[in-house]
């Protein structure tokens, strides 16, 4: 084990996989000479050279299209989108091509590609650069959507994503690169499509992932001081969604809230709550509540932005509400 930041864990995963498999290469805006706009690929260009760390034009369709084509003929590209907000420029490439080509051609080829994208609000970047549209991408069959909440999971899941023969959208959070945690060294893989209990508890279940995990862990500590023990289930992967640990936890606590950074309407919370109602209705002791972003485009002003984003206090309030 080594203590490191989320940024270091992601870098380590990339580097280990590039060292392990020569078919892995990186492409994206400013990934090379610049070293990555979030410094994840700092030093990669010097180590691996321009063939394996490819700076692209600012052209998201070309980036994702090139990754798809290279994957079709047997390489393992890791395409970086500077932010997930730019994925909208390449929406057709991601949801209409990457997610569908294998099925449409009867499984004749695989698409072993990873799209790394940075999402999330809280950095005063304004409405177009601050979104958490994870649920949008998780809507489409054919695309795996992974979003880790700890450095260890970031490493283990990214390594699995690179080895996966399917297209994986790997969503990182812009405010979490400095989050520290224990990370196993060397060969360490976490399975895609498996939820995980990040904190055991008996009183209520908090279902969350990514930034929501960071906030929920803080909320759980405060709740514990009041004698409330929350069990936290980290989804880690949105598609395929693993509900088993969620249902198991809920059958024990009979109360749940779902915490996500994206907008509440048509979101991850709606999906998880529906599935609990469908599959564990007899265990429901209180309405399942959703903690999410206010239904507004994120403003620049810091006070307004924070007011729109879900906070620890919102989680505590929702937890107390379902326990009332």
């Amino acid at each position, binding site marked *: 084990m080594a203590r490191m930041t989320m940024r270091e864990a992601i870098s380590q995963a990339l580097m280990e996989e590039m060292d392990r498999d020569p*078919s892995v*290469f990186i492409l994206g805006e400013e990934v090379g000479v610049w070293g990555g706009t979030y410094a994840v690929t700092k030093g990669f260009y010097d180590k691996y050279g321009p*063939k394996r760390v*490819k700076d*692209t*034009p600012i*052209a998201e*369709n*070309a980036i*994702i*299209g*090139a*990754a*798809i*084509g*290279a*994957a*079709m*003929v*047997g*390489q393992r*590209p890791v395409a970086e989108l500077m932010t997930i907000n730019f994925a909208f420029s390449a929406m*057709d*490439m991601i949801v*209409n*091509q990457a997610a569908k*080509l*294998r*099925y*449409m*051609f*009867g*499984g*004749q*080829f*695989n698409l072993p590609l990873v799209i790394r994208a940075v999402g999330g609000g809280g950095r005063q970047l304004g409405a177009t650069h601050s979104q958490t549209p994870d649920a949008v991408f998780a809507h489409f*069959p*054919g695309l*795996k959507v992974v979003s880790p909440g700890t450095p260890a999971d970031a490493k283990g899941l990214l390594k699995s994503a690179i080895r*996966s*023969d*399917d297209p994986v959208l790997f969503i990182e959070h812009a405010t979490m690169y400095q989050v520290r945690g224990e990370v196993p060294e060397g060969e360490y893989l976490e399975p895609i499509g498996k939820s995980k209990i990040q904190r055991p508890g008996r009183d209520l279940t908090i279902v969350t992932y990514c930034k929501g995990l960071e906030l929920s862990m803080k909320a759980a500590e405060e709740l514990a001081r009041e004698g409330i023990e929350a069990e936290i289930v980290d989804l880690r992967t949105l598609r*395929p969604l693993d509900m088993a640990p969620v249902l198991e936890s809920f059958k024990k606590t009979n109360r749940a809230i779902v915490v996500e950074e994206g907008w509440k309407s048509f979101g991850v919370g709606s999906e998880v709550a529906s599935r609990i109602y469908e599959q564990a209705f007899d265990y429901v002791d209180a309405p399942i509540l959703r903690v999410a972003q206010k239904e507004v485009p994120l403003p620049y002003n810091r006070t307004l932005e924070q007011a729109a984003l879900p906070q620890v206090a919102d989680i505590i309030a929702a937890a107390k509400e379902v326990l009332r």
Partner: protein
Amino acid sequence: MNKGQLLDWYYQMVLIRRVEERGAELYQAGKIGGFMHLYIGQEAVSTGIVAAREPRDRLITAYRDHGVALNCGISAREVMAELLGKITGMSKGKGGSMHMASVEKNMWGGHAIVGAHLPIAAGMALGDQYAGNDNVTICMFGDGATNIGYFHEALNLSKIWNLRVLWVCENNKYGMGTAVERASAVVDIRQKAEAYAMKNGQVDGMDVVKVYQAAKETIDFVRRESQPYFLEVITYRFRGHSMGDPERYRRPEEVRQWQENDPIGIFRRYLLENKLADQKTLDEIEARVERDVQDAVEFAEASPEPPLQELYTDIFVD
């Protein structure tokens, strides 16, 4: 070009024509669903292009893809079965008319979103460049695709990264029902390649021999120079954009005029005038096509539907 090769091209061109004519009948009879875009009138283009490639060169095209599929060696049986949505189609009936592909034949589809396969083609060439081989990716698309962002991102990328792509624009004068001059700032489409400092040329797409020669030269150029090349092929589709096209955007006389330049007729005259084939030989080829198409239709109609379990296969590998 030897005689056997030329006669094989004749077979392929007539095969495309007849497969599509039978396909149109089956469509009218309700046995083929969805959209179906006929290649009739453009047979010389794909026949000449595909004949010029090495087997290792990759082919990718748009949704008007039956011709390319047959030229690449996908059997008429598989094409017809895919049109009918049967399990014996190359994509198990999941792709249909617009998504014909056979990795085994180095034919990578059949892509139905206009322009979307252009960045993917650049990516295939990138994959080959990364692997260190000198395969050429041949990417075919219509004039309509040259007005969409994909086109510009893909051409630019292929040039800055020295990717081995032969871009083949089939200019058939209309993007759906909108004439080139109403949709494109430049009518001479190959000029668009100039914006990317890309070598380019133009060829008569109704003459298979000319198409073949141009393709041969340009594929060699791409392989040798490790550079993309933009080839504009002037052609014309005799049928509507798709099966449900009222064709209000063009006059019947215009269509008739082009039909006088039928690529099959032109090639037929070429073979006869140059004593490369006699009437009897060509009649025999046509009779063989007729038998093969009949066999393909019977095969497709007799083939089973995909079992319902197929709904859930091929989404993910694991």
